[in-house]
């Protein structure tokens, strides 16, 4: 089946079998391997992408369902491939990653989370992170990354509005 969608701001067209997930469509047909597949049944969160602005599991959607939608994967967060988004910078600075397998999913989830909860408490941060698993870091660096990203984000907003 033909699928037309916008991925990271660019119009894309692919011909996919219905049984292929959105994650497979991104990775195999569009060559965007930043979206990782861990469990392939919705538990680990490493495949999280933005679908029309909302964070979803790309392993729990078929690619054909994304026809007409806008998808943002980790490759598209910063706008240009050479730079890092604010959330990505925060992960780098606080050592919010070790092997990095889980990181694309975390970065996407945190981006969506901060858009809704710009000034989170630590409890809200932990709740917001509960849908992503990391087997390396022990989460402390990740919690710090979210705190830092929230602060950077608020500062950036204050600057642009003031």
């Amino acid at each position: 089946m033909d699928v037309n969608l916008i991925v990271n701001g660019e119009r894309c067209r692919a011909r996919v079998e219905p049984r292929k997930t959105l994650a497979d469509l991104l990775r195999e047909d569009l060559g965007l391997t930043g979206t990782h597949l861990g469990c392939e049944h919705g538990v680990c969160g490493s495949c999280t992408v933005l679908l029309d602005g909302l964070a979803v599991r790309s392993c729990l959607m078929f690619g054909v369902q994304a026809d007409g939608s806008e998808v943002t994967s980790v490759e598209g967060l910063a706008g240009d491939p050479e730079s890092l988004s604010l959330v990505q910078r925060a992960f780098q600075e606080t050592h919010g990653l070790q092997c990095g397998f889980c990181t694309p999913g975390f970065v996407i989830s945190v981006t969506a989370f901060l858009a809704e909860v710009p000034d989170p408490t630590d409890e809200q941060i932990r709740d917001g992170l509960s849908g992503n698993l990391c087997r390396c870091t022990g989460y402390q660096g990740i919690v710090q990354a979210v705190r830092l990203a929230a602060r950077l984000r608020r500062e950036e907003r204050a600057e642009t509005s003031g």
Partner: protein
Amino acid sequence: MKAAAFDYHAPESVDAAVALLAELGDEAKVLAGGQSLVPVMAMRLGRPEHIVDVNRIEALAGATRSNGTLRVGALTRHRDLETDVLIRDSVPLLARAAPHIGHFQIRNRGTVGGSLAHADSAAELPAVTVALDAEIEVRSSRGSRRIRAADFFVSIFMTALEPDELVTAVHLPVWGRGCGFAVAEFARRHGDFALAGAACGVQVDGGRIVRAAVGLIGMGGVPVRARPAEQALTGADAHGADLVSTGRDAVAALDPPSDAHGSAAYRRHLGAQMITQALGRALAEAQGQDRNPGQSQAGGTA
């Protein structure tokens, strides 16, 4: 972990969807949020030949209210239960239950109709519908019918739905003033299915409990309504209600599952605690909203 091949259909109206279901019979599966069905297909626990994706049917999403009833469309996402003001104001128990469903990424896709049709007794929404005496509206090419929640959930993962029927909405009663609602549950990790939980509503008038609804999560093969607890509370003085023994009595006769996550006895223990907690919070909220607190006879502090 890849689904077997299937034919994909994406009808844009309820009529088109039920026509497809009539034609394809039990070779077809409805796909809503996919948060339960896609894992089932990936693990090859199910291999439907046809998928009828209802996500393009706009008429299936959203809520409306009339004559004291809230109608929530089957394709309404779990997320909307938290954010939609009409839903939150009309049936607060839905909004209180939603944050307990998985994680926000799951709630962005998962739907009300999908949760009900999937009929996991450890899920939140089936328990809410049973507690509130909701009716589930279903359609097929043969017509439309409404099924009381108590009759809809038949046994473990089994509903009264026929293979050619589509869940189109759920109808829930809007309670009046003086109400409080709460969901309490115990899960090993945040976002996991609960080992045991309770979804409760209480209405107080003049310091007296005039209505109580108690639905239990994970306490049997189907969502259980704790009628003895409701009866014990109805008519009781809101201040003097013994919620600890209400919880204990409510689970005494239940036979929850015993598995690797917990024994039946452990689940009964947790269930009693969750009932006590949820009722306590619901009651406190209801008392705060009581229209005639001054009329309370026994409760001196009201």
